[in-house]
């Protein structure tokens, strides 16, 4: 039972506002005083006396009045709100009833919106987690990375141990500064057992990233000395797998590569290392040896936390001062061209070009969302036409235009809210699909979860989309001409010029957007096709590679490695079906070493960083690369023999434009004639051959990179490691088996290698381009589909509206062909306008794609015209189908229908 027994009456006497409240109160109190004094007069008192007596008895009028008003205002406010809420509830109930009566309409609208919103939300999720909030640490805005700046803007995101220690000691800009080095170690006693990837960290690392162990303790100062007992902090995962999550694990021992470590702590489950996803399973102290401190190579990633109150100018001044001190302290090794330490954000270093790509993709999804909204608007407008009569009846019954408009908007919001729910779920699946498609470590697992920010984004997007659509529809569709709609019956009303115009504009917009997205996709597809067709200079078919991820113990000396390499190669060459075998320090399309070089006797002919690769004999032969001049590396170029090198063609041309480089000599590891560090001193190397420029950095490298190849056997011992093996064979299975067996038979303790076809390595190197291309193509196809549906909807509706007119035309002798032409012409007009607008838009916008293109300009005429043809064809089909139907109208039926 309702507490309010007279809701109807209350509403009739509904007080119009605060002013009404006041006059009501004074009326009521006045009535009382009046009544009282009447009573007194009746009792025989004089009128004035009676009135003052009544007032006296009443008490303090002003105070009472204001007290009463306060209550009334409260009542008034509450009732107005209750009224509004009631009205909303009624409208909502009505809306849901309407939608349930038209389930197909509701489903189509929800599906269309969900599509647009979830695509946008999925990309936003990626943008948010990769570009906007990538670091898993508290106060990430104060985290910076320190790297070394060379002349001509060369930058290495790393410091040498000596520089690190110097900055750690001297700089005052940081709250903390630390470095780390990844390692992989066998866990437990079995040497071929599972390995864990961990990091050696310097003191203060955990403070810099702002994380602490949840169990046990962090490293103490004493544990960062070389004599200290070995201690380790485990990740949650390793703690679980090794100790089953037992809290008593603290103080127990764990074996890493056979050495016992005492477990002193366990990190929280949320612990991650942003820049090296997998390297956080175990932490041990990093202590630099004197040799490491003497090494000039910048090989340590340095992370620091800025002081909260420090300004950019203060930071610059601090870095400059410390750099000057450093040069003063080490005059003999600091090269003149050093530009000192530079601070970089995580986004700059690890996100880089990715961020612009992601923003572009977000823009693309925004377009898809607009398209989805346009289609929904179209659908709603069409439906509102068939609801004209309903609106008219409601208007006639006293519903204002506002009330009907509110109904329309509310309907859209209900659909939008449902779509937002579905889109949230779909976007999570979408993010996973995107990550799978990118086939790289695009997002960490923890970043794939639903995030409040993403949720807010999705909800707001859905609400904004449905409000805008609802508003447009209610503006256009609620203009009801009562007499016309009611008089003409349910059908026959043409919907008005206004509606027709709005719908044409929508179709034009859709075509324009589809055009832009298709151009984007077309350009990326063309780029990808061109890249795939690029000749890298080496063969990719029939080449198979094997990489040993980690050597067992005993491979510390160069001699053992060379011996192992020779035996594996011998085995491979003896295997039937293998037509070539070689070894290399790094595989094509993977990064090699970067070393400076000076020509012997020409200290000015120098390079800051050359690509340095070491190979076994017959490497070029196996890879299908033919020497331009000179000889290949042979078995006789071994250790102790004169040092030799093969160089790339563009390198040869740069320094010896008019003569043969054969016989010339280089000083590797020297910059402007000065050694960069003790490990790199070597006698001059003689150039023995020249090979064509290879695209072995990346397929899309525009400039050939100066490269030098040296024999595996002549690598400075400090740089020797187990090489990758390469074979040539016609059968993939045979090649893989041969590689695995040769390695396992040579040393059974060796882990099973990762075997890959060169075609896969090439394809893998294009994964990011494939990713952007596929994504853009998906969006463009979505856009095309939505546009097609939109055009079809508009034309089909126009045909339905004009059945009568078409019937008359046919009855008067119009041929079916001319009817089709008429309908198609009218259907295509907004499309053509849209195409032209879209073309202009594409010309303006495609420039943002420039860095993602290869071999085509952003205004590639072929791509543009191909896209226009595709779109026009689809539009034609979409309007032809309903046009055909129109031409088959039975004139008798059409005329009789009225």
């Amino acid at each position, binding site marked *: 039972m309702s507490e309010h027994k007279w809701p109807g009456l209350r509403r009739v006497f509904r007080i119009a506002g605060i002013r009404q409240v006041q006059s009501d109160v004074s009326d009521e109190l006045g*009535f009382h005083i009046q*009544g009282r004094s009447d009573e007194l007069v009746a009792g025989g008192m004089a009128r004035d006396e009676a009135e003052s007596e009544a007032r006296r*008895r009443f008490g303090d009028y002003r105070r009472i009045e204001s007290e009463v008003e306060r209550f009334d205002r409260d009542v008034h406010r509450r009732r107005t709100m209750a009224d509004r809420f009631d009205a909303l509830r009624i409208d909502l109930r009505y809306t849901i009833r309407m939608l349930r009566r038209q389930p197909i309409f509701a489903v189509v609208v929800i599906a269309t919106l969900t599509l647009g919103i979830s695509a946008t939300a999925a990309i936003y999720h990626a943008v948010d987690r990769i570009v906007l909030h990538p670091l898993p640490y508290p106060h990430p805005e104060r985290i910076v990375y320190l790297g070394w700046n060379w002349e001509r803007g060369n930058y290495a995101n790393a410091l040498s141990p000596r520089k690190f220690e110097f900055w750690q000691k001297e700089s005052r800009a940081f709250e903390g500064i630390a470095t780390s080095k990844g390692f992989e170690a066998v866990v437990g006693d079995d040497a071929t057992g599972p390995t864990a990837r961990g990091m050696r960290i310097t003191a203060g690392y955990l403070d810099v990233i702002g994380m602490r162990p949840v169990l046990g303790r962090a490293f103490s100062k004493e544990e960062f000395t070389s004599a200290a007992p070995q201690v380790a902090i485990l990740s949650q995962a390793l703690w679980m797998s090794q100790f089953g999550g037992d809290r008593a694990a603290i103080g127990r021992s764990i074996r890493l590569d056979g050495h016992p470590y005492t477990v002193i702590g366990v990190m929280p489950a949320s612990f991650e290392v942003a820049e090296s996803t997998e390297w956080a399973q175990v932490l041990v102290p990093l202590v630099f040896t004197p040799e490491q401190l003497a090494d000039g190579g910048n090989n340590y990633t340095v992370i620091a936390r800025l002081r909260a109150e420090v300004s950019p100018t203060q930071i610059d001044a601090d870095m400059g001062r410390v750099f000057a001190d450093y040069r003063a302290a080490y005059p003999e090794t600091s090269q003149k061209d050093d530009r000192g330490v530079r601070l970089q954000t995580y986004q700059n270093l690890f996100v880089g070009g990715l961020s612009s790509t992601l923003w572009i993709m977000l823009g693309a999804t925004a377009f898809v969302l607009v398209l989805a909204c346009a289609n929904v608007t179209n659908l709603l407008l069409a439906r509102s036409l068939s609801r004209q009569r309903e609106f008219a009846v409601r208007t006639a019954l006293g519903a204002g235009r506002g009330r009907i408009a509110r109904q329309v908007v509310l309907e859209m919001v209900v659909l939008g809210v449902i779509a937002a729910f579905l889109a949230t779920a779909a976007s999570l699946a979408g993010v996973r699909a995107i990550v799978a498609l990118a086939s790289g470590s695009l997002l960490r697992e923890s970043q794939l979860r639903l995030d409040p920010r993403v949720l807010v984004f999705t909800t707001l997007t859905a609400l904004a989309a449905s409000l805008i659509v609802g508003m447009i529809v209610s503006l256009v569709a609620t203009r009801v001409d009562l007499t016309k709609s009611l008089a003409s019956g349910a059908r026959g009303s043409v919907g008005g010029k206004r509606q027709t115009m709005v719908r044409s504009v929508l179709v034009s917009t859709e075509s324009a957007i589809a055009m832009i997205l298709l151009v984007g996709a077309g350009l990326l597809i063309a780029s990808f096709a061109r890249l795939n067709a690029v000749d890298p200079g080496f063969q990719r078919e029939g080449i198979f590679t094997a990489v040993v991820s980690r050597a067992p113990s005993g491979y510390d000396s160069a001699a053992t490695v060379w011996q192992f390499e020779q035996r594996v190669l011998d085995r491979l060459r003896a295997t039937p079906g293998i037509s070539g075998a070689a070894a290399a320090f790094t595989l094509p399309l993977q990064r090699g070493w970067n070393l400076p070089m000076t020509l012997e006797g020409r200290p000015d002919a120098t390079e800051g960083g050359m690509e340095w690769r070491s190979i076994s004999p017959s490497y070029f032969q196996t890879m299908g690369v033919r020497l331009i001049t000179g000889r290949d590396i042979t078995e006789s170029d071994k250790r102790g023999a004169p040092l030799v090198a093969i160089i790339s063609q563009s390198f040869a041309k740069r320094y010896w434009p008019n003569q043969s480089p054969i016989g010339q000599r280089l000083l590797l590891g020297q910059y402007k004639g000065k050694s960069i560090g003790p490990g790199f001193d070597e006698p001059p190397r003689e150039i023995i051959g020249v090979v064509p420029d290879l695209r072995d950095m990346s397929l899309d490298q525009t400039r050939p990179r100066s490269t030098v190849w040296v024999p595996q056997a002549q690598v400075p011992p400090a740089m020797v490691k187990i090489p990758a093996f390469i074979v040539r064979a016609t059968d993939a299975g045979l090649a893989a088996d041969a590689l695995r067996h040769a390695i396992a038979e040579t040393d059974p303790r060796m882990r099973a290698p990762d075997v890959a076809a060169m075609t896969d390595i090439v394809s893998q190197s294009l994964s990011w381009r494939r990713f952007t291309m596929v994504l853009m193509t998906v969006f463009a196809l979505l856009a095309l589909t939505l546009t097609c549906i939109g055009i079809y909807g508009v034309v089909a509706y126009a045909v339905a509206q004009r059945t009568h007119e078409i019937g008359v035309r046919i009855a008067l002798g119009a041929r079916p062909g001319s009817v089709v032409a008429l309908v198609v012409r009218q259907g295509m007009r907004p499309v053509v306008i849209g195409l032209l607008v879209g073309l202009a838009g594409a010309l303006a916008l495609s420039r943002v794609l420039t860095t993602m293109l290869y071999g085509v300009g952003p205004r590639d005429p072929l791509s543009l015209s191909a896209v226009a043809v595709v779109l026009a064809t689809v539009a034609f089909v979409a309007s032809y189908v309903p046009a055909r139907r129109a031409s088959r109208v039975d004139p008798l039926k059409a005329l009789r229908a009225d």
Partner: protein
Amino acid sequence: MTPAAANDLEVLRGTLDLLVLKTLSWGSMHGLAVLQWIERSTRQRLQIEEGALYPALHRMEDKGWLDAEWGHTDVGRRAKFYRLTAAGRRQLNAELSKWARYSEAVGWLIDASGAQS
């Protein structure tokens, strides 16, 4: 209206609600009628500051115990009429039982002999 000595009892704090609710339980009334009813049925013994009635009425309306509407008196004058809602009726019962327990307790105290303590 009769001698000043008659209305010598001040309304106890918190009992005005009870008086108003009980009065309105007989039917819808305007403020003055409520007051007159109270005067008549308490035989003029209670001294009420008349104006204080109105904040009480409006407060109880705010709380949802009373419902109000404008209507006309028998002689055709416009007045605001109050009546009890279901919640008001529940409130009345609560107040009544509270009052009964209170006056019973006070009665015990008055009747009690000194020996008991």
